[in-house]
C-alpha cells in the first residue's frame, strides 16, 4: 500500500488521540448524569501544567500525573458546584472553562515556546508487523495505546459489568439507582473525577506528544469543544465516540492536505466547516425514528447491538440533581 497514505493514516490516529481520550472521559462523566462543560479550558490548563511538571522534574510520567490531577480537580469543582452546592452544572462548567484557559496563559507565559521533554513513539513488537494495520495503529506513542485500552475498557465497563449497570442507571434514572442500593451522588463524584482525570490526560497527550511543548495562545484551544460535540455525535457510546474522533481528525488532516495542494483553490474556512456540517447531517440521520426503522429490517440477533450502537438519546438524567428522600 502507498507509503504516503499509510503515513497520513498514522498521523490521523495520532492527532485524534487526545480527542479520543477527552471524549471517552466526558462520556464516562455524562453517563453518570453530570455534564462537565469545562473541557476546553481544562485541557489547556492541564496541557500547560503537564508540560511544566515534566520539564521541571525531567520525567514525562510526572507531567502526565500532574495533568491528570488538574483535570480531575477542575471536574470535581464542577461536581461540587452541581451536586453539593446545587448550582447549574452548565454554568459552573462554562465559567471554569474560561477561567482555566486564561489561567493557563497567565501562569504559562514564561514557558512558552521552549524545548522540553517529549514522549516518543514506541512500536509494539509483533503487532507492528501486521500489514497496513501495524504501521497505522501500532507505531505510535504510549498515549495512543492507552486510548485503545480506554475505549475497550469504557465499553466493557458500561455494558458488560454490574457496576457499569449502576453507572448508567445513575445517569438515566437516579431514583431507580437509589432504590437498588447505589449511592448516587458519591458515584457521580467518582465518575466526574475519573472523567476529568482523562481530560487532563488528553491535555498531557497534547503538550507531551501530539503538539509537543507549550505556547501562548495554546495550539489546542477549541479542541475541548470538539470533544464535547464528539460525545454527542458518538451517542455516548465508546465505539461510536472513537469513530467520531477519527472521522473528525481525518477531515482535519484532509483539509490540511488540500490546503497544501497548489492547484486546488477551496477556501480554508469552508474546509474547516465541513466536519461540523457532516456531524449535523449524521445526527439528523441517527436521531428519531430512522434508527428504529432501520433496526427492524435487520436479523434479530443484530437488532439489539445495532440499536445500542446507533442510539443517540442522551442519558435521561443528564445535568439534573438528585436528592435522596
Amino acid at each position: 500500500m502507498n507509503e504516503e497514505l499509510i503515513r497520513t493514516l498514522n498521523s490521523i490516529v495520532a492527532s485524534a488521540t487526545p480527542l479520543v481520550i477527552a471524549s471517552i472521559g466526558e462520556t464516562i462523566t455524562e453517563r453518570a448524569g453530570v455534564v462537565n462543560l469545562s473541557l476546553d479550558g481544562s485541557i489547556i490548563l492541564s496541557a500547560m501544567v503537564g508540560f511544566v511538571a515534566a520539564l521541571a522534574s525531567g520525567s514525562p510520567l510526572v507531567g502526565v500525573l500532574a495533568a491528570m490531577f488538574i483535570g480531575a480537580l477542575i471536574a470535581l469543582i464542577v461536581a461540587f458546584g452541581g451536586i453539593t452546592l446545587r448550582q447549574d452544572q452548565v454554568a459552573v462548567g462554562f465559567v471554569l472553562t474560561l477561567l482555566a484557559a486564561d489561567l493557563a496563559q497567565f501562569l504559562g507565559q514564561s514557558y512558552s515556546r521552549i524545548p522540553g521533554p517529549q514522549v516518543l513513539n514506541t512500536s509494539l513488537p509483533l503487532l507492528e508487523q501486521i500489514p497496513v494495520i501495524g504501521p497505522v495503529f501500532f507505531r505510535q506513542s504510549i498515549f495512543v495505546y492507552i486510548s485503545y485500552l480506554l475505549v475497550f475498557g469504557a465499553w466493557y465497563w458500561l455494558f458488560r459489568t454490574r457496576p457499569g449497570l449502576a453507572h448508567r442507571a445513575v445517569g438515566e434514572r437516579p431514583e431507580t439507582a437509589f432504590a437498588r442500593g447505589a449511592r448516587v451522588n458519591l458515584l457521580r463524584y467518582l465518575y466526574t473525577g475519573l472523567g476529568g482525570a482523562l481530560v487532563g490526560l488528553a491535555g498531557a497527550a497534547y503538550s507531551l506528544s501530539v503538539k509537543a511543548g507549550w505556547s501562548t495562545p495554546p495550539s489546542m484551544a477549541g479542541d475541548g469543544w470538539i470533544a464535547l460535540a464528539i460525545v454527542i455525535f458518538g451517542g455516548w457510546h465508546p465505539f461510536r465516540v472513537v469513530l467520531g474522533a477519527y472521522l473528525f481528525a481525518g477531515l482535519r488532516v484532509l483539509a490540511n492536505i488540500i490546503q497544501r495542494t497548489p492547484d486546488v483553490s477551496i477556501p480554508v474556512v469552508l474546509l474547516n466547516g465541513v466536519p461540523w456540517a457532516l456531524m449535523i447531517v449524521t445526527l439528523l440521520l441517527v436521531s428519531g425514528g430512522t434508527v428504529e426503522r432501520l433496526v427492524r429490517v435487520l436479523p434479530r440477533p443484530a437488532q439489539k447491538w445495532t440499536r445500542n450502537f446507533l442510539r443517540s438519546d442522551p442519558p435521561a438524567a443528564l445535568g439534573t440533581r438528585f436528592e435522596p428522600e
Partner: protein
Amino acid sequence: MDIELQHIHKHFGPVHANNDISLSFRGGRIVGILGENGAGKSTLMKILSGFQPMDGGEIRINGARAAYTGPQAAIRHGIGMLQQDPLDVAAFTVLENFIYGQAGGLTLKRREGRARLEQICRRFGFSLEADTPIAQLSIGQRQQLEIVRLLSQGVKTLILDEPTTGISAEQKTILFNALRDLAARDGMCILLVSHKLEDVIALCDEVAVLRGGRLVGTRDMPATTGELVAMMFGQELPPQTRQPLNLEGAETVLALENLTLRGKRVIVENLSLRVRAGEIVGLAGLDGSGQEMLLRACVGLLKPVSGRVIVGGETLTGAPYRTFLARVVAFGAAGRLEEGLVAGLTLTEHIALVTETGALVDWSRARCHTQERLRQYNVRGRPESRVETLSGGNQQRLLMALMPACPLLMALEQPTRGLDVDSARWIWQQLLARRANGTAILFSSAELDELTAYSDRILVFYAGRIFEIPDASRASVDELGRLIGGHFDGAAGA
C-alpha cells in the same frame, strides 16, 4: 413472613402523615391498605419498604426488631415495593433491568439471568422478552418485570401501590392470579394500596383503613363497597342520583358532521354527533381508541381531515383553539401537570393568567381573586405555593377554578383520574351544577361506574369505531365492559 408495625410516626413539616400506626400482617394473606388521598397510606408503605425513614416507632419482622435504611436494605429483609410508576431504567433492556440490583460478581452473567427471568415469567404467564428495551413496554409489563425482579431477590412481602392504574383488563387478571398464587402457595404477604374498591373487594382477604394519618381500623373481607367507603370517610355516602333533565327543545351546542379524524394509530371516520345544551356525553373505551381525538377536535386542538365542527351554530372547522375559547369552550386535559397547569408557577400566578387580562399585573388584586377562588373551589393549598406541590385532587379543583364559570361546552379528559371517591364526587357536583345552567359536557373516563352514573348518552370507542348507547341509565357496567372490548355485534343500539 409476619410483619408488625408498632407506633409508627412520620411528620412532613406541620403535617402528621402517620400518627401512631400499629398494624400487623401475616404471611399468606392479601391485605388492602385503604384511605383517601393524603390519608397516609403511601407514606406508611414507603416507610415499610425503606424509601422513607420514620420519625418514631418500630418494625418487627417474625418477632425480631428490624432496623434498616434504604429500599435495598428493605429487600434484604424480604420487603419489596412496586411503585405506581415502576422504578426501572427506560434505556435498559428487560434483562439488564432484571439483573441490576441483584447480587453477583463483576460480570453480568446474562445467561444465568435470562434463564431465571424466563423461569419466573413462565410460572405466572408473564410475557416478557429479555432483549426488549423497557421504553417499548406497557406499564403492565413493567410492573410484571418489577415483580419478577423482586421475587428473584428473595422478597417475601410484596407491596403494590395502585397497581391497576393504567393497565389492561387482561393484564389485571394475570396480575391478580399471580398475587393470589404467591399468597396461597408461597405464603407471601401481599399489601395492596389502592383506592379502586372493586379491586380490593376482588382480591383482598382483609383491609386496613387509614384516615388523616391514623389507623381507623381493620376488618376481614368480604365487605361491600358501601361499608368500605364508610370506613374511609367516616360516613356512608348516598349513591349519586341523577336528576333527569328535560332536553326537549334544548338548542344544539355542538354539531359534528361527517367528521374524519386521523391519529397516530387510530382513524375515526364519518362521525356525526349533536350535543344539546345541558347534555352529558360519556366517552368510553380503552386508552387511544379515538375518544381523546374526538375531545380535542371539539375544542379545535385537533384539525379534522374532513367534515365540519359547529359550535353554537357557528362553523369553526379548522379555526384555532383561541377562536374556540372565545366561544366559551373549556378543555381539561388528562395530564394535569403536563398540559393543564404550568409546573413551576404558583397558584396566584395561575389565577392571574386567567383574571389579569391587561398588560400589567395587579398582584394585590390577583391575590384577592386567588383567595376567593381557592375558597370557592375548595383547593387546599397556599396561594404562594407551586402548583406541582398540590395533591391530584387539589390540582383538578384548581383546573376547575381556572375554567370559565359558565361555558357553552366542556370537553374533559378523564376528569377524575387518580382521585379518591370524595374528590371525584366534588368534581361531579361542580360539573352537574354547570350542566344545570345549560353547559354541555363531553368527558372520557376509564371508570365504568362513572360513565353509567353521570352520562345521558355514552359513546363507546373501539379502535376508532363507535357504538352509541342512547340511554346511559339503562346501560349496565357488564354490557359497557363488553363493548369496550370490541364486542359490538349483537348489542342493541345505534
